[in-house]
């Protein structure tokens, strides 16, 4: 089925995403600029140029982080 979704965990919360979505597509669906976030996929950092190539699978854990105020 074309519009089938899978569940992954993004920043600690479960989220349904299209099957075979890439990390770049995930960022786009969240309206996040890939230059402004760092992506960790199943505990491994994925560099910006590879975001379009890496696809998510059911149960994957994705962390999207950026810099915030701190001391």
């Amino acid at each position, binding site marked *: 089925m074309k519009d089938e979704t899978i569940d992954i965990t993004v920043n600690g919360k479960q989220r349904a995403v299209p099957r075979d979505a890439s990390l770049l597509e995930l960022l786009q669906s*969240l309206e996040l600029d890939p230059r402004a976030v760092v992506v960790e996929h199943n505990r491994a950092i994925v560099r910006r140029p590879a975001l379009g190539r890496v696809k998510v699978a059911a149960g994957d854990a994705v962390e999207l982080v950026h810099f915030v105020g701190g001391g």
Partner: protein
Amino acid sequence: MTTAVELVRNAPLAIGGRTFHSRLMVGTGKYRDNDTMRRAIEASGAEIVTVAVRRVDLDRTKAEGILYHLDPKRYFLLANTAGCSTPEDAVRYARLAREAGFNEFVKLEVIGDQETLLPDVQGLLEAAEALVKEGFQILAYTNEDLITALRLEDAGCAAVMPLASPIGSGLGLLNPYHVRLIKRRLRVPVIVDAGVGTASDACVTMEQGVDGILMNTALAAARDPVAMAQAMRLAVEAGRGAYLAGRMPKREVAVPSSPLEGMLD
């Protein structure tokens, strides 16, 4: 005659192969609003500005990081591992911070106790060793213990950051003797981090001969953060200037400043 200001300006601070002119470094946390933060940092004259690594808030309509309010071309961003309580977490946060693509410097914190936020020095050493091997320039937040400071230097840290007093406490420099000892024995820069509450604390800390100070709450929690930032800038320069000028010896008895000769009968 050399002025104190010239003394201060003639000797820039080198950390991990980079040179900085300001010896005051500031954090970006806890400000009441971003505009106040931006103006306070500007008034502080700081070049090195610390930031934390956190999840993007996906529930907000527009997830804004600190870089929307701070020009990364103007300031040298120093990412911290604040909040991490294991070496594994600290290494993970450091790697994420480096991936943001600004530099290879990390202010390494491994917290050992939630009430005091005092560092877990064993975990700190472990994380420092691992990160130095990965090519990071590590500025290690530690307590004012000489042996730990020496081990952090041996591990290859670019700078060692003993605390003045606990993070956010504003208690000032509690152990000047130990901080002086660390400065005297280390070759890498010693930057006092945490605990400075007001300008006199900053001045006294710099008078110990340390290479710089990092502070956050002292500015963010001041009634007027911008004015306090300016006061801190002057205090750091004054303390550095006094240290370089070399203070007079202390005496237990008075020594008159005016001549004894020529007194009337």
